[in-house]
Every structure is written in structure tokens, then in C-alpha cells.
């Protein structure tokens, strides 16, 4: 099953459950509290996901390692390499 199909399946499942509760499609005579709570859940989920995404990406950008030492080490090794290669006869 492709990821797209998995998502569609998951969304359908949640959508049907939501529809059943909110619109009382099975005629279960649920207390109105249930319906009132269920009704805005999809929007809540989207908002929560949106906030989670922003927070996660923001955190990851802020903590993205800057490899200063790696860059310095590379510069030093480049010098060393050029010297060594010249000695070995490389014409650059």
C-alpha cells in the first residue's frame, strides 16, 4: 500500500468516526455534549498539527549544529595535502 493510500485510509477512518458522532448517523441518541465536543475536532487537529510543525522545525533550525571545527580542520588538512602532493610530484 502506498503512503498516499495509507493517509487516505487513515483520514477516512477518522472522518467517518467524526461524522458518526457529530451527526449522530447511527442514531445512538448520544448526549449533546458529545456532539458539541466532536464537532470542532478536525479543526483542532489541524491547528495542533500546525503548531507542532512550526515548533519542531523552529527547534531543529535553532539547534542545527554549526560545524566550525570541521571547517577549520578541513582547511588545515587541505594545506597539508597540497604540500604532500607537491612533494610526490603532483602538478596542479
Amino acid at each position, binding site marked *: 500500500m*502506498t*503512503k*498516499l493510500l495509507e493517509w487516505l485510509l487513515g483520514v477516512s477512518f477518522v472522518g467517518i468516526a467524526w461524522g458518526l458522532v457529530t451527526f449522530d448517523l447511527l442514531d445512538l441518541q448520544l448526549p449533546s455534549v458529545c456532539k458539541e465536543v466532536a464537532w470542532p475536532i478536525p479543526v483542532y487537529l489541524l491547528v495542533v498539527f500546525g503548531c507542532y*510543525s512550526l515548533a*519542531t*522545525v523552529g527547534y*531543529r*533550525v535553532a539547534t*542545527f*549544529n*554549526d*560545524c*566550525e571545527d*570541521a*571547517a577549520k580542520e*578541513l582547511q588545515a*588538512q*587541505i594545506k597539508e*595535502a*597540497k604540500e*604532500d*602532493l607537491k612533494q*610526490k*610530484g*603532483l*602538478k*596542479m
Partner: protein
Amino acid sequence: KVGLERRRSSRTRRGDKYSVLLPTYNERENLPLIIWLLVKYFGDSGYDFEIIVIDDGSPDGTLQVAEQLQKIYGEDRILLRPRAKKLGLGTAYIHGIQHATGNFVIIMDADLSHHPKFIPRFIEKQKEGGYDLVSGTRYRGDGGVYGWDLRRKLISRGANFLTQVLLRPGASDLTGSFRLYKKEVLERLVERCVSKGYVFQMEMIVRARQLGYSVGEVPISFVDRVYGESKLGGNEIVSFVKGLLTLFATT
């Protein structure tokens, strides 16, 4: 020849040999340096290796420099398998694998953004878990990047987040191209992958998961010396998103 022999005999248990594929295009300046570093770190660690340079008809004389390096380090260490013109990365891997005598293949960039010092760590990680492939990650552990501004970091993390949500790939860095593969695994994967560019590397990992291969990770540092000249533009972002959505819908 250089003193590569000293520790080779003590480390080649089971006869593992590592073939490094270096596709090059206009890398006259960097090629000697990357090869020097590869020889140094393989020499120090004692693992058996060869470097396969796949030059796509570089007009700047990369192949001539490669020939000089071959004289210095030996034809059993540096193999030249050039091509007439610039063809894709996937075909470069296929071409390289055909001439590889190792049982493991390492793919990396030749522009010094990937540092050979991580290769012994890839090898050890692979041995530790028996992984079919080991991927270098910039996003976990002490992995990271040098030379990126805020915009570039934001795009990178944002794109990676989107990829994680949509594909749930079980690997933290999908667009990275510094990896160690078992040779037969790389062969099978390259056959099946159809995308180009960044998405090709992503597809390799996604297909690896599909085929049940195990993926290990090693944090790496990526030193971008090219970013200032070639900014990540709108076109690349659009084609990335298209590629991601295609993978989402087809895998």
C-alpha cells in the same frame, strides 16, 4: 608507493574491500585533496579499498589530474572509468559498480563537503549491526553543517520535516549522499530508482525500506564551500516537492 601496507594485514578479516565511487565534473582542484584524504584515512584504519573516479568529460582537465594521482598511488588503488559527457548520477553508480572489486561501495561527493574521516565510522557501524546500508546524517547526534545561512537551514529542516511526515522513512537524512552500501544492495536499488537529483537519494532509502533492507546511521558534518556561489533556488525547491509527492503517491 605510499606506506599503505603497514596495517593492512592485521585488519582485513573476512576480506572486506571498500570501493569508493567518485563521480566528478570539473573537480580539478578538489580531486587530489579528496583522494589524499581517502588514502590517509583508509591507510590509518587499515581497511582494504579502491577509489573509482567516474569523470563525465570535465572540460577543466579533471581526468588529467586523476591520471597523475593514479601514478602516485597506484592503479590498484585509483581506478579511472571516465565517460564522454555529463550523464546522471544513477548511471554513474551503475557504471562504477560494474568495475568495483569491493564487496562494499561508498558513495560520496568529490567536492570536500563529505569528509573521509567518517568512513571508518561507517564501516564500524555496518559491522556492528550488519546493516545493508549506512547513511550519513546531518540532522542527528553531532551531525551538522558548516556554511549555511538561516534561510538554507530553514529550507533544509522544513523539507526534511515534510519528508518525515509524508514518507515516515525510518531514516533522519534522506537527501544526503554520503553512504555505505553492500554492493549487491546498491545494484538492486539503483535498478529500481527512477528519480533525479535530491529525490534520487531519497528514493534509494525508501526503496531500501520497501525491500526490507536495514539502514544504519552515522552523524556527519557537511562543509559546504559551494553554497555562496550556488544558492538553493525556487526551481530546485519546486522539483523537490514534485519528487516528494511522486514518491508519496507511488511507494
